[in-house]
């Protein structure tokens, strides 16, 4: 089974860091990386930070989550350039990224995870 990792992308540095904190409670061993805010840590997203989050993530298959739509566009630009297999979810940001890492920690496979994520699609 391919190793799964999670990347979270938020417009706000504090949100990204906070979500990782929330996830760490239930997912001590999961590969989690994040991108929060712009290069100057202002509100927005950063192509470079997202790219770094993908490259530094130990997962081979990355499950990616974002807060607002403009993050998605930067995410997709990075996805076109990375070697990794990336699955991007248009789901409730915190609730679905939390669900994903909890399931990965519990040993669930991608199909089981996506089944749980499906009802959280809102974008």
């Amino acid at each position, binding site marked *: 089974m391919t190793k799964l990792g999670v990347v979270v992308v938020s417009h706000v540095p504090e949100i990204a860091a906070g979500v990782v904190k929330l996830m760490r*409670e*239930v997912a001590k061993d999961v590969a989690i990386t994040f991108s929060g805010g712009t290069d100057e840590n202002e509100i927005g997203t950063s192509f470079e930070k997202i790219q770094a989050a993908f490259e530094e993530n130990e997962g081979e298959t990355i499950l990616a989550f974002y807060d607002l739509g403009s993050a998605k566009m930067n995410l997709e630009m990075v996805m076109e350039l990375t070697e990794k297999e990336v699955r991007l979810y248009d789901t409730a940001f915190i609730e679905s990224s*939390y*669900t994903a890492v*909890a*399931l990965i920690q*519990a*040993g*669930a496979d991608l199909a*089981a995870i996506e*089944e*749980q994520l499906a009802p959280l699609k809102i974008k």
Partner: protein
Amino acid sequence: MNVEAVKKWMILFTEKVNQNKAYLSELDRAIGDGDHGMNMARGTTEVMAALEAKNPATVADVFKLTGMTLVSKVGGASGPLYGSAFISMAKEAGTTDSLLAILQAGLNGIEKRGQAVPGEKTMIDTWQPVIKALAAGNLSEQTIADAVAHTKEIKATKGRASYLGERSIGHLDPGAVSSGYLFETMLEAGVTND
């Protein structure tokens, strides 16, 4: 219902929770966020402090202070859940002496608060069989142990464990286990239906 027995119950429950703090958190680590032992240990320790400080004179007041303290000190789902249970029990204890009626009120409080029903792998799966056995006059340590053990087979559909879906099967529910302690210590303290 004897107020001294009820206070003893709270003391024994606090002791049991604190002795098993690591175990409760370990259970919660498997299907939750690993803090149930911490939450319950902190909450019950605060209950002890509050009971000592205020020394409530009636069963209703003991339950009320316990509930309010748990609500404000626990920080996890078990806070409002146990809190609602004890607050409802306090209300019921104001009008009846029946342990059965009081526990049933507690369960109603939990169900109202958490919108869960039996079979969803929560503390309710301890409370409900215990109350049933009490009503039938055959509540024992074994009834409690069986109810707790049964949560292992259930798939969680409420609480944090529900995020795991099928993966929650095969693990005891931590809140069901701590509720097991609640009812074991109730028997030990001699709090009974008469």
